């Protein structure tokens, strides 16, 4: 985040054009893909299908918001800025803990509280490594990802742990105005995030901490505290997502780490929609839904789901390349 000091009209113009090109390109690609699905994917536009995608996006949505907060607070420089690679593994650990606790006979209340604690503790370990020990977030959270993954394996021995509880049944089958609980969850969670990030002082200060840490520090903000809390928040998001996952699968299952690519794709893609290439709630939500529709459209077109992985990887590359290019123009 070194230089936002674009000098002279030439620099400003160049930056403007590059930023505009990246944003327009991203929007264009989004629209083109969706239009293609509308035209060619059978059943794509049915309300039932659209709400299915919203419902299916709830888990990824909660995780992507967690990642977005980490990127906002730590700065969106891809190599040195905020990133939490441990989120998917943390969710896997939390899901395993949740299912195991329910199976051991604990109530929903106790189990959910314990799982939120587990998620927050993993987040706190990240915070300790990044803020306390000064390790690059990319490496610190990679290490924590392995710790969480190992802990999950120890707990479940790589098996499926079935779970059922009143809360899970409600999440799985509940409907309000003919829209499922999970879809509502995503809508409400997004609303809360939007208010917290874009309409409160906390949100504003978080952007300041990530965008200009020196200035934020000079202005008396507790930069280290803010950054630490973003990792704890991401951990909490992983815990919340784990409860949603267990409700969808009626169990905790191995392989949660597969989600990491989607989380990164959603959070990074979300940065393209802002003028300064920082994550926003709207942009993140749009990206989450886009990834959901992409996977859904592929299913309806009978294209192998293996392609979705490839497309997500390509999207990450494109976004990182495009935003670095546009930022390069700033200098």
């Amino acid at each position, binding site marked *: 985040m070194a230089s936002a000091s674009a000098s002279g009209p030439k620099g400003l113009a160049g930056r403007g054009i590059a930023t505009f090109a990246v944003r327009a390109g991203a929007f264009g690609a989004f629209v083109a893909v969706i239009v293609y699905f509308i035209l060619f994917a*059978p*059943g794509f536009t*049915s309300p*039932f*299908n659209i709400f*299915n995608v919203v*419902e*299916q996006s709830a*888990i990824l949505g909660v995780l992507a918001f967690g990642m977005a907060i980490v990127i906002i607070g730590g700065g969106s420089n891809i190599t040195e800025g905020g990133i939490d690679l441990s989120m998917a593994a943390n969710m896997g650990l939390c899901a395993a803990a949740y299912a195991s606790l329910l199976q051991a006979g604990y109530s929903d209340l106790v189990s959910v509280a314990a799982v939120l604690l587990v998620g927050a503790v993993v987040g706190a370990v990240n915070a300790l490594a990044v803020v306390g020990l000064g390790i690059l977030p990319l490496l610190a959270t990679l290490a924590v990802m392995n710790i969480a993954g190992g802990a999950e394996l120890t707990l479940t*021995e*790589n*098996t*499926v742990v*079935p779970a059922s509880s009143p809360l899970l049944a409600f999440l*799985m089958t509940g409907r309000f105005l003919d829209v499922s609980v999970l879809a509502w969850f995503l809508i409400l969670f997004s609303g809360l995030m939007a208010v917290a990030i874009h309409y409160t002082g906390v949100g504003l200060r978080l952007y300041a901490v990530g965008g200009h840490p020196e200035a934020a520090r000079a202005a008396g903000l507790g930069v280290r505290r803010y950054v630490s809390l973003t990792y704890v928040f991401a951990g909490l998001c992983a815990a919340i997502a784990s409860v949603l*996952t267990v409700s*969808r*699968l*009626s*169990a905790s*299952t*191995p*392989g949660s780490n*597969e*989600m990491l690519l989607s989380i990164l794709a959603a959070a990074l893609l979300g940065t393209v929609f802002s003028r300064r290439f920082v994550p926003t709630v709207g942009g993140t939500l749009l990206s989450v839904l886009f990834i959901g529709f992409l*996977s*859904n459209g592929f*299913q*309806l077109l*009978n294209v*192998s*789901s*293996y392609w979705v*992985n490839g497309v997500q990887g390509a999207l990450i590359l494109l976004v990182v390349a495009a935003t670095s290019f546009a930022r390069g123009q700033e200098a």
Partner: protein
Amino acid sequence: MEELFGRSGNMLKMAVAACALLCAAYTTGDARADELSLKGKKIGVSIVGTDHYWDLMAFKGITEEIQKLGGEAIALDAGRKDQQQIAHLQTLLAQKPDAVVEVLGNIEVLNPWLQKIKEAGIPLFTVDTVTPHALNNTTSNNYNIGAEIALQMVADMGGKGNVLVFNGFYSVPVCKIRYDQLKYVLTSFPEVKIIEPELRDVIPNTVQKAYSDVTDMLTKMPEKDSVKAVWACWDVPQIGASQAAEAAGRTEVRTYGIDGSPEVIKMVMDPKSTAAAVAAQQPYEIGRTAVQNVAKHLAGQVVPPFTMVPAVLINKENAAEKGKPFLDAAEAAGVK
């Protein structure tokens, strides 16, 4: 069919009789198949993954038979991701196909969603998935397979010794049946002991993980004959286990598995390999049969709650003769 279905030395009389019955039922089913049609029908197919020979062959059998009968397949492969398979089932629910064929997967995860398919009035057929929500489950006779491979193992062990067991997929119904049958057979042979803790087979990296797990256990139990056999409910861990035993110079160890991947059949055929036996199934036929059941149901015929396609125990003695038809079938389907 007939050559696949001979009398194996270890087959119980009952099993032979049952298989003969099944085979007869199966051939009459096949004769009728000529008249079956899925014209104008949309059939949803959901499979948990196709990275293993068995899965891929079953998937091919299903989709090619749907095509052959003139139907349209919405075939969805979840790439071994439970989350993805649930999304697929949900998509199929929205698409309202004329029937759904679901293949393999974790039963706890699937059951609530299979119930929704049933409740939506979509006829549900399964392959290797035992669930009360399906009209029919097409599968091998896993009760027989499980008992036969266990009995072969006990016989080879001389009725005593330690066995390493991979039990990572008890949540997959067919593995549960085979494992339970193993345990049941062992109740009659108290001198055969399963080494605790049991090993966990994984997907992906199944072969590598099995190799390192078995290597570790053989290092931990270095005396000759301290481990006599390795058992797994499918045959991919068997590959890693056999290689590990051979690499460790522990050629007294014998490995056992189920499915009949061509690679494993070839190992059983090789007199020097530690792979002692594999129960070979006909996944392509299982897939085809499931689709024929769909067509029968849609044509108003009565379909039984399960259809079993014959499987054959291939061991060191009969491998040359019994193995070949399976290798030919794999080659014909173009799957290695």
